């Protein structure tokens, strides 16, 4: 039960029910879809990148609580960050949810709530889906990316 509570923390549940930046970005100059064929999770991430920084970000789609909360908190975290910083954060986030991080993700701020995912290897794909879509958007991959 405690592992479950670690996974489904209040913050995560709250974000999954009321996702932030949950909108199509009219001004987007980058966008990409992320798709997990295994469970049908499907998100589109929209980015407005100006002078190497993410000036605005939004997402839409459907998925489980973990994938939705992760997408929501990703958009909150990355707004205003340079694309280089976004890369660095994703790399740390990835280490955190796969259990490879040295600490418990203190330097990730709010995103540290996802540490519990590392106890559920099958859910890592959920936690990283929107992030993979983000990378696809930044690097201009047109096709929907898939976690499989």
């Amino acid at each position, binding site marked *: 039960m405690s592992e479950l509570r670690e996974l489904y923390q209040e913050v995560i549940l709250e974000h999954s029910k009321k996702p932030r930046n949950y909108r199509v970005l009219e001004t987007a100059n980058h966008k990409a879809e992320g798709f997990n064929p295994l469970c049908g999770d499907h998100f589109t991430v929209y980015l407005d990148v100006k002078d190497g920084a993410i000036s605005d970000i939004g997402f839409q789609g459907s*998925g489980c609580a973990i994938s939705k909360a992760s997408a929501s908190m990703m958009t909150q975290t990355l707004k205003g960050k340079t694309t280089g910083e976004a890369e660095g954060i994703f790399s740390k986030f990835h280490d955190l949810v796969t259990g490879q991080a040295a600490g418990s993700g203190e330097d990730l701020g709010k995103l540290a709530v996802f540490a519990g995912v590392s106890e559920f290897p099958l859910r890592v794909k959920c936690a990283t889906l929107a992030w993979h879509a983000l990378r696809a958007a930044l690097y201009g991959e047109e096709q929907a990316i898939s976690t499989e």
Partner: protein
Amino acid sequence: MSTVAKTPHEIRAEPMFDVHKIRRDFPILHQQVHGKPLVYLDNAATTQKPLAVIEAISNYYRHDNSNIHRGVHTLSERATEAYEKVRAAAQKFLNAASSKEIIFVRGTTEAINLVAQTYGRKNVSSGDEVVITAMEHHSNIVPWQLLCEEKGARLRVAPINDRGELLLEEFEKLLGPKTKIVAIGHLSNALGTINPVREIVRMAHARNIPVLVDGAQAAPRMQVDVQELDCDFYALSGHKLYGPTGIGILYGKMELLETMPPWQGGGDMIASVTFEKTVYNRLPYKFEAGTPNIADTIGLGAAIEYLSTLGLEQIEQHEAGLLNYATQAVGAIPGVRLVGTAKEKAGVLSFVMDDIHPHDIGTILDSEGIAVRTGHHCAQPVMQRFNIPATARASLGLYNTRQEIDALVAGIYKVQEVMG
């Protein structure tokens, strides 16, 4: 010593299906998952294996392992005999007219591909049509799509209603002179719907159209009689039938199998080979190229024997009672909606929950030791039909109990509690 003669009534009154006794035949069921007793409700994905199956495979490798249809030595003779005995058992199990109509394949998927690639490629041409239904598993969709793409033919899909039942009249309207084959599931793995196969075959045969039946889910749940159904092909998987993975059966009517070209070439499927001409072997070997999966075929034989001893009718009754119980109990939970409510249904309880994604349901139930499947169940068009991304699915096996359904219900309440 006195023996009292039993009246027929008394014999019938004996408990014929003692599920608690049966559970002892399945070693895997007696374990804890996350500190809770395992409740295995993912039987539509694959079933657990009774000791008889595990031991048949092990004994084969310990005592009889050899290649078949080749050597004259004792082990080869034993292996060949054991292998062919399973063919005879499978014939009886499906009530096929001849054991030559039983072809061993890797599973349902391979069986369907075999028919699409042999019967299909020979008989379907540009402008022709293949008819399936909206509730098919991907393995009864994609092989036909591949065929249609290659031939310039068209795949037609018979619609279903909101309960997940085939619209028979709409189905019949799709049948015409261009229809070259009908392929339908006997029992839907995503919805549990039992299709009226006999009726469908009658409609198709009235127009001289052959019918393939995907029996992956029906074969473990009901008595299948291919002659009574009068279907032309019937496909099933051993691993869903309490047997091993990697082995399945394609039943085909002799007169159709005779006219079909072979699929794969190699050893065993030939009568004679020269570089100028190869003469193919007779049925069923024409379709069994190369060394087959001997050990798992023997395992499948043990599974068929096990099921026949329990009696398919008893299994069907047991599961029907359980499904009824589960439908009422799960259906009564506020915030839960059942997907697939056909009148004729078996084995499968698919559901969705308000504001809770099936993936989260699956993780939380697993933490309670309950194994269900979540996702699209290899039937994405079914999900699209019901406008949902996925469902959670509890699927029954002959060893499931009411207590396990109670555990599922408690687990669903737990899901609601965790997800707030």
